[in-house]
């Protein structure tokens, strides 16, 4: 006798809640004051992966709200200017949402190029906001290193898009 398939519905918790919690947990772990072989841990912006992947997976009201909360968490965790990373990541989300139709269905290296552009745009905006807020320019070298660390997270963004893009056929 043939057994029936168990259909699993992909809900918001699968592609919004759990990845957001994972990114915040990663930010917590990477903020530990530890040096490995004399070097400090890198400090990428983990939720940037979500800001890039979520609008490509599907537009949703819950995603910007979650990004806003993730940004506030980072600002509190790092003692940064309140609202900085929320604003920056919402900017990335908005830009990617507006060019969604151009990016969808492209090859991986095209996705990577868009991701690099989004990260550079985000850091340029953050650099500008902090310079205006504090009245002094942050180090460009330090900013470039953090950009590289965040770009290195692209495989996670790509995996997230491949995993959930086809999860719900209504959004094809």
């Amino acid at each position, binding site marked *: 006798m043939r057994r029936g398939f168990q259909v699993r519905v992909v809900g918001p918790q699968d592609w919004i809640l759990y990845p957001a919690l994972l990114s915040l947990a990663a930010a*917590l*772990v990477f*903020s*530990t*004051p*530890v*040096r*490995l*072989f*004399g070097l*400090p*841990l890198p*400090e990428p912006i983990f939720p940037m992966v979500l800001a890039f992947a979520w*609008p490509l997976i*599907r*537009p*949703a*009201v819950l*995603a*910007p*709200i979650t*990004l*806003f909360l993730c*940004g*506030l968490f980072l600002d*509190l*965790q*790092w*003692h*940064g*200017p*309140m*609202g*900085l990373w*929320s*604003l920056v990541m*919402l*900017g990335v*989300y*908005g830009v990617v*949402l*507006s060019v*969604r139709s151009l990016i969808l269905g492209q090859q991986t290296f095209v996705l990577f190029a868009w991701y690099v552009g989004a990260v550079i745009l985000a850091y340029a905006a*953050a*650099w500008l*906001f*902090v310079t205006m*807020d*504090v*009245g*002094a*320019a*942050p*180090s460009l*070298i*330090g*900013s470039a*290193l*953090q950009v590289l660390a965040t770009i290195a997270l692209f495989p996670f963004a790509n995996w997230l898009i491949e995993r959930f893009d086809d999860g719900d056929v209504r*959004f094809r």
Partner: protein
Amino acid sequence: MAFRDGPFENLKVPLVWTAAVAVVVAAVAAGFLLLTDNREDLTASGYSGARGTFDQAAAPVGKVLSAPVRWTGQGSDFIGQYFFAVRENRKLREQVAELESLRDANIALRNVNARYEALLKIRTEPAVPMATARAVSESRGPFVNARLIDAGTKAGVRVGNPVVNEHGLVGRVVGATTGVSRVLLVTDVASRTPVLIDRTDARAIMVGDGGGNPKIEFVRGHGAIKEGDRILTSGDGGVFPRGLPVGVAAKGIDGTWRVRLFSDRGAIDFVRILLFQDFSQLVNPQALNAPPLAALDAAPPPSPELTQRIQEVAPANRQPSAPAPVQAARPAVAAPTTAQPAAQRPAAQTPPRPATTSPTPAPAARKAAPPPATRKASPPARRPDGTPRRPVPYERLNPGGAP
């Protein structure tokens, strides 16, 4: 006709538009938070209730999360020490040989210094009490350099306390709750530290930019700094005590002077908080902000010589025909003195300081420092016998040639 049969049957709000509206609303909220944030003030008001509550909740989580990572770090250190033991031993032997001669010199200098202090009856600064804490989390990006430490107001920590490790200055406390405190590192882009160059005693400001080596700006004096100079806190402004070791001067790749921090020589896991109170914490702020004229009542009585000069000058000032010769004399004295009496000044105008706005008095006049009322008075236009006075040459008023 039912609604579903009408023209709105297939009306659906596009998901892209609803998401865009959500983005705009959230961005406006984030922008409002960013505009109202006052973290860069580095005061207790900048450490709002939300930040304090979050830090108190995050500290235990950070401790738990950092434990396995710390063990890993200790393991890597163990491996490193095992493989580099010979090189480290060689380096330590060189350091011991160098430090032995310094130790002997230090003993001799301390002995001489103690004798000088006893002879001159110098009031040395009292020892500063300390509290020890461990860093449980940190941020080291270009925009924020801060640490969370597990000691708070229960341990006596207050906003503004300097934080050091075994090598040198780390930062200052910018927020304190009962159990945890937030430390802003000297490398943070909002950090400004008054420092001095040990060799020349020149003052400067160390400015963080989010990188590992803060910049040195506003260096006073030409050639006041060179490669390898030791940088200490100057104590100016009262936030840090004088003499805390900070680092060594070095030229950056962008041509600016930077500091290689002593505190970078080791991990900043355990830190000491100097429970140092600057003068703004010790003195009543209202007393500091009192109007300066309140002390004029307690001015000492003028000396007989000064009384004689006042009596000589006073009648001439009352003469109504005085202004014309004074006007003529102004160009000769390069117009540094204002003939306007102090009582006629606007209330908001700050009275000029003698060293910057009035010419240097002649040696005879320098012995008896005139009180403010006579200093501001214009020179008498006529002698007591009625003949007009000759304008005083500029060289006599300003023998040093200062502008």
